[in-house]
């Protein structure tokens, strides 16, 4: 079984559309994340949730809205998509809120292309 799974893996959509990416982890972890990797391969944190509570919200446009219905799921909804949103979005999880000793496990990524 995949530890951190996200869907869809590939998404091509037009500017202005709204889309969602779903993420689920079966590791029993308390903390989940969304990272964005751009075309230059820079990997940046967007959001982090601990037990359904938002704890990290980087300077991300409010068109991006994460939702965590329970601690095993963290979805990402994006409104009014723009060309610059094209990237790979990685969901990840870790055991707890404190990193030392806690490995971050990444999902396989969702390749979003906005045309």
């Amino acid at each position, binding site marked *: 079984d995949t530890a951190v799974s996200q869907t869809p893996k590939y998404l091509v959509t037009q500017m202005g559309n709204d889309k969602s990416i779903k993420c689920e982890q079966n590791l029993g972890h308390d*903390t989940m994340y969304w990272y964005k990797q751009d075309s230059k*391969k*820079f*990997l*940046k*944190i967007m959001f*982090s949730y*601990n037990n359904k509570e938002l*704890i*990290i919200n980087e300077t991300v446009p409010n068109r991006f809205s994460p939702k965590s219905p329970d601690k095993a799921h963290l979805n990402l909804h994006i409104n009014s998509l723009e060309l610059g949103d094209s990237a790979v979005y*990685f969901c990840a999880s*870790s055991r*707890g*809120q*404190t*990193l*030392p*000793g*806690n*490995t*971050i*496990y*990444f*999902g*396989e*990524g969702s390749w979003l292309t906005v045309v």
Partner: protein
Amino acid sequence: QQPVQSPQAVILREGEDAVINCSSSKALYSVHWYRQKHGEAPVFLMILLKGGEQKGHDKISASFNEKKQQSSLYLTASQLSYSGTYFCGTEMPGGGNKLTFGTGTQLKVEL
């Protein structure tokens, strides 16, 4: 604030050694190393905590010098499977569970 890695890219012949450096402008609490193959997710390699520790796994090891705010990843007797992009992820004191990833180093091992 993003850690800077060097070199940006390196090409090795199988069996050669390489060192990848990660430097931060801020004090560090821990350093995590990941490898990402093309089209795949980053995969965890190791964590180093403050205290100047060194760690190793098979032919890949790393060191962490908290005074210099630097970490280095050592790959010895490289194999084709080592090819990929290596990222350091740094955590700052009081930074919660926020991991800031470095600029990345592309490593290619050839026959």
